[in-house]
């Protein structure tokens, strides 16, 4: 019994000790970029300001859900990273707060326009174009031709070799769907998705999973953001990155301050800091090959050259709105995902 008591006591002491540690200024950061980048941002901000950062990394869809669930009683302060649509959606639903950063005049025009489309409730921090990558070894082993365009992926010989994420759970896949609708028109776009469906071997849950599976040799072609594919190639996997010939959509990775944030000052400090070249250059340390939004930030030589890619005129306002999103997703669910493969 005595020992039992001691154990209980020790655990209480341990609890108290660990709880009372966090008393300084703090910031709760929801991060939707890749884990190591999130970690690096959190730790570097701590080093730069002495503010304690509590960081959770969840995909942009998950984070959006969480912010919405907590809206009556917000727990997070800043949401950094992840594709722009859920940020726009959050702005539309007043889940995020407007803020005019003094850093704005240093940013690229696309980052500002992202903010202006959402009453300044969000801002662009990086951008990346959609495309796909394939595993060169597997492609050769299966004697498949090298794809260069979107329509190549519909060819019957790629049956069972293409992977993309489920648009219901991934912002990347939703961008793919919305890009196809904008590139080809709604009817043609959905015809494309239906054709693609026949070749898809799995709809993954997370956006970058298809190219990661391709890297490991578990899949041949993955439809993802090109910077994700570049990262796999740089990590040593046999991946070739393709910018589709017809042109492609893109995302603007965004950042928003959560409405009703408990640590609003710290949140604004983080916001300003995250737009500096110093903070944006951290991306290079973790092989994040997106194009940073500050004009003074460095771009990696391995990053896809945005000037050589045909970009469509992506209507973020329209396709980021919850109504349009819901409509397209439902249509995809009913018309595409239920088809036999």
């Amino acid at each position, binding site marked *: *019994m005595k020992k*039992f008591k001691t*154990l*209980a006591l020790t*655990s209480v002491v341990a*609890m*108290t000790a*660990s*709880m*009372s540690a966090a*008393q300084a200024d703090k910031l*709760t950061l*929801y991060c939707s970029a*890749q*884990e*190591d980048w999130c*970690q690096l941002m959190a*730790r570097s901000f701590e080093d730069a300001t002495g503010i304690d950062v*509590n*960081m*959770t*990394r*969840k995909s942009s*869809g*998950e984070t*959006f*859900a*969480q912010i919405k*669930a*907590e809206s*009556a*009683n917000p*727990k*997070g302060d800043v949401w950094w990273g992840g594709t722009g649509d859920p940020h726009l959606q959050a702005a539309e639903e007043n889940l995020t707060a407007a803020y005019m950063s003094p850093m704005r005049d240093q940013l690229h025009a696309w980052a500002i326009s992202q903010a202006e489309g959402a009453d300044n409730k969000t801002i662009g921090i990086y951008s990346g174009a959609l495309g796909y990558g394939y595993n060169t070894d*597997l492609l050769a082993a299966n004697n498949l031709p090298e794809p260069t365009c979107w329509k190549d992926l519909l060819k019957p010989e790629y049956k*069972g070799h293409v992977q993309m994420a*489920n*648009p*219901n*759970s*991934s912002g990347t896949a*939703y961008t793919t769907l919305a890009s196809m609708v904008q590139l080809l028109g709604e009817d043609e776009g959905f015809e494309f998705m239906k054709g693609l469906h026949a070749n898809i*071997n*799995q709809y993954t*849950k*997370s956006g*970058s999973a298809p190219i990661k599976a391709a*890297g*490991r*040799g*578990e*899949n041949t072609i993955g439809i993802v953001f090109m910077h994700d594919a570049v990262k796999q190639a740089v*990590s*040593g*996997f046999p991946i070739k990155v393709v910018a589709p010939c017809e042109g492609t959509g893109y995302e603007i990775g965004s950042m928003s301050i959560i409405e009703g944030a408990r640590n609003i000052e710290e949140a604004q400090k983080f916001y300003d800091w995250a737009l500096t070249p110093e903070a944006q250059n951290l991306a290079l340390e973790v092989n994040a090959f997106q194009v940073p939004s500050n004009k003074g930030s460095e771009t990696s030589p391995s990053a896809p050259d945005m000037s050589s890619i045909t970009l469509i005129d992506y209507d973020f306002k329209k396709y980021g709105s919850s109504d349009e*999103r819901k409509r397209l*997703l439902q249509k995809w669910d009913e018309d595409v995902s*239920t*088809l*036999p493969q």
Partner: protein
Amino acid sequence: MRGDLNESTAHPALIFWIIAGWVGFLLLPWYGVEDGFLSFKWLVDGYPFDEDFAPAAFLIGQGEKLWLAPLLLPLAAPFLVVRRKKSDPLYAIVLILAGAVGFGWLIAQGFGIGIRGYTFDWLTALFGDLDDRQYGMGYGALIVASAFLFLFTQGIAARGAINGDVFVVSAIGGVIVIVTTFVFFPIAKMLLAAFITEEGGYSAAVFASKFFDDRLWGLGCFAGGRCGAAWNSLFLAILVGVLTTVLGLVFALVVTRSGFRYKRALRALTVLPIITPPFVIGLALILLFGLSGSVTQFFAELFGIQPTRWLYGMPGVLIAQTLAFTPIAFLVLIGVVEGVSPSMEEAAQTLRANRWQTFRTVSLPLMRPGLANAFLLGFIESMADFGNPLVLGGNFDVLSTEIFFAIVGAQYDQGRAAVLAMVLLFFTLSAFYAQRMWLGKKSYTTVSGKGDAGVHPLMPNGLAVPVFIAAGVWGMFTIIVYGMILYGSVVELWGVNNSLTFKHYITAFSVRIEESGIRWTGAAWDSFWTTIYIAAAAAPLTAIVGLITAYLLTRQTFAGKNAFEFGTMLSFAIPGTVIGVSYILAFNVPPIEITGTGIILIISFIFRNMPVGVRAGIASMSQLDKSLDESSLTLGANSWQTFRRVILPLLRPAILAALVYSFVRAMTAISAVIFLVSAEYDMATSYIIGRVENNDYGLAIAYSTTLIVVMLAAVGLLQILVGRTKIGRRTQFGAGE
């Protein structure tokens, strides 16, 4: 005589709870403190006048939250009877009334007034708009609620319930309240969520449209398409249940009824999967059997066949779950197989049954309860499993992952999640019920008071050969899988660059020594410490609640005991995914507002794992003769003293089992956890699954390997702390104390 006098006018328990009630009302912050349950920053931050930290009395004094004022009456009422005898009818009536009214009002105001004023439209209609609001309850409310509860139970006891035993009545009351709060209330809330329309009203049509969904019940797989998630889950769970039961029986037979020499090694091997974070097995399987897995490549080259993605989908999930859950079936079955009385088997053989007939007609039927339990466990675990389908599921959708993506997906549909959770719950409860039906009312008792000196016969040969082959294959497979896990954690980049490295361990667990002390710079430290802290806090609490419940169930008789037992065991049949969803729905808003805290994790673990504590407690308590309690009571001890000084010391094995199980489960569970983690309280398992999704297999596996080692160490440590079983001391204890 002196004892009698004391008892008639002084009521230490009563006075204690009256004081506690007033302390809670006058001194402690009434509402939840934002900085965390164990942070005491509020003491220097405007207490006691600041509205956020003020005790109820100060709030009322400042003219705020006046709806708390009526609580003063039931708090004051017990003073009337402090000087009265317990046998005085007024004593009981006043306490019952004060307790019931106080508790009732506390609950009513908590639900009636939320963060946006009145929670119910009819209240607004009745009293007009309320220009005030309140947040979740804190220490003050908690203590006052407990005070009311225990005043009430003391009143009940004074009326003569359970021989007027205050401890037992209070324990029953306490267990009922916490189980209602943390099991029934969230489930009920979740059931309601399934009917909520987008506008916030209630409608059965919403439920119907979500329930009769093709993605749930479609039967397309018979026509080349895909089947609904409900059918997939059901089919998978039945298969896993059957397979794990058969394999578990195989191992139990090898250990108890064969001349196999390395039984200890075999036991160790079967424990391994229990302390493994669930999806690690899935990862190892991908590394072995995936499209580019080692085994796949080997056979592809050997036979010149085209590698396929066969692993992704039903086959992969089935293999992974069978590997993971067979040990649970084994642990259930070993006790039952050992428990079958050898005398009965010997009697059958004396009557000229051969070994096969004996096994088939005597031993096997007597193992029915064990087989049914093992199947049920496998079934429920498979239904609730989240990690393996996520990693290996491919396009094979099951309920648990569908629930997750209904909540986190871009469509964000809590109603759909609730409907799916209901289907899941319906399946597991049906299995629970079917198991009880199948066992029926037959007696399977073979261990009686009489000595049984028999020896178990060996298996018949016709059985031994397949059993040994199955055990051997499974054993080899497990060894290979775990070998892969260890290897996977020390290679640079699996499949591409197989050079050895410790870099994943360094990324996860590096430390930096600075002037200000050690800085835990590794990526995994945050979640690691949180996990240890949560697991260490949950384990003893689980054991306490479980053992008290077991004590009530085995040692006391009271009205409604069957319902009570069902209620406490119910959370066992509720899959973790359902718990997760229902906790978010129930505890994100006042009166109990604990999402995003460590407390919600601890609570979810307590109620997830409590049934195991209860079962372990019941099993060992049934072995203790009731005459021990009786002699203790005769010698003047009350039931609390008896429980603490007689029963508890004899329960060490049960305590150990409950502690170990809840500690391990708290470290490896994912299905409920994934919904409940937050920025501040991220758990190891959810962190690892994030790594898996990000292709950081090295890091994920390195972290899991570390967890396995930590759990082994913790289990060993607990064993030393709690002490070993010494059943031989039973008589000595009984006589000595």
